[in-house]
């Protein structure tokens, strides 16, 4: 595998002599903890943007699931990182993830129950039309 990736990277980064460029190449062929954290952070940001911009309340719930998943990814990445450094309690990250999944399932059940009750009373799922408490 690395004998395919290495020439491709060398082609892309012709002057891979610089310290920074060789580090970039290394990061591409050998992704480490920070790459997982970047993916998790971007998933989180996409989820937050979805919560803040969408009008459909069901899609807002889906964005919340995306946010919880980003947190899970961070937990698992750090768990693996601590495992590789020989930490005995590293599996705690995975145990915590189990609890997050449980809470997410409970939250989805309650939230969707609220959506159904709301739809029965207000006949809408657009959040900007649900303004009962607005002044």
């Amino acid at each position, binding site marked *: *595998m*690395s004998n395919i*990736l290495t020439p491709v990277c060398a082609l892309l980064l012709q002057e891979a002599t610089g310290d920074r460029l060789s*580090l970039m190449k290394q*990061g*591409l062929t*050998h*992704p*480490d*903890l920070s790459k997982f*954290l970047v*993916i998790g*952070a*971007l*998933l989180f*940001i*996409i*989820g*937050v*943007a979805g919560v*803040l*911009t*969408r*009008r*459909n309340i*069901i*899609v807002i719930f*889906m*964005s919340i*699931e995306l946010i919880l*998943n980003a947190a*899970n*990814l961070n937990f*698992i990445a750090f768990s*693996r990182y601590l495992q*590789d450094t020989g930490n005995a309690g590293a*599996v705690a990250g*995975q*145990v915590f*993830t*189990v*609890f997050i*999944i*449980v*809470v*997410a*399932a*409970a*939250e989805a*059940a*309650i939230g*969707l*129950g609220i*959506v*159904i009750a709301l*739809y029965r009373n207000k*006949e*809408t*799922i657009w959040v*900007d039309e649900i303004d009962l408490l607005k002044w």
Partner: protein
Amino acid sequence: MVLSGWEALFFWIFGFAALIAGLLTVLARNAVHSALFLISSLVSVAALFILLGAEFIAGVQILVYVGGVMVLFLFVIMLVNVSAEERGREAIFNSTSQVLATLVFSALLAFGITYELNQGAQNLQKRDEAKLKEVAVQRAEQQAASQVGATGTTHLTKDTERIGASLYRYASLPFEIASVLLLVAIIGSVMLARTLKQEAAVDDVDPELLKSKGEL
């Protein structure tokens, strides 16, 4: 923790798949499409979990999220979205200023976090090839030492065993509390989703009587 070889390639594939599917979840017009894109994002994240050596969590992710929560979502979309679809091509986003502000702050957050993480990683570890090889050899040894599966081509992971031991040894009280939480969620969602008629029936009042009084 360093991935290499095929693992690195699959990391990039599934990482970008998770991000793109997440983005399409937010951007899709139809809520059913959103749900399907969210499913692909969740599956990609499960694949990342497998790359990180958390096979049990990956299985739980697929069983609980994709098999349970997303089916619930699809049912609610089916129950609720019918008339919303009939209203035709309505705006799916909030007002322009709100979207603009969100985009600006999201971009700031994304660039800031990515820059800082890269900076921190660079300062933290200027890895040399020797150490990378050492870690790869260590992992290969660990894999070889683990029990061989029934077909002889795979190795069995001890991940589930470790999680189970840790869960029952150190987190048994939170485990029980989580089960109570799920029970409360079940009862709560049943209470929330029932109709006025069903509520009246639970109170042992004849719905016809309420209707004649004009309360229903």
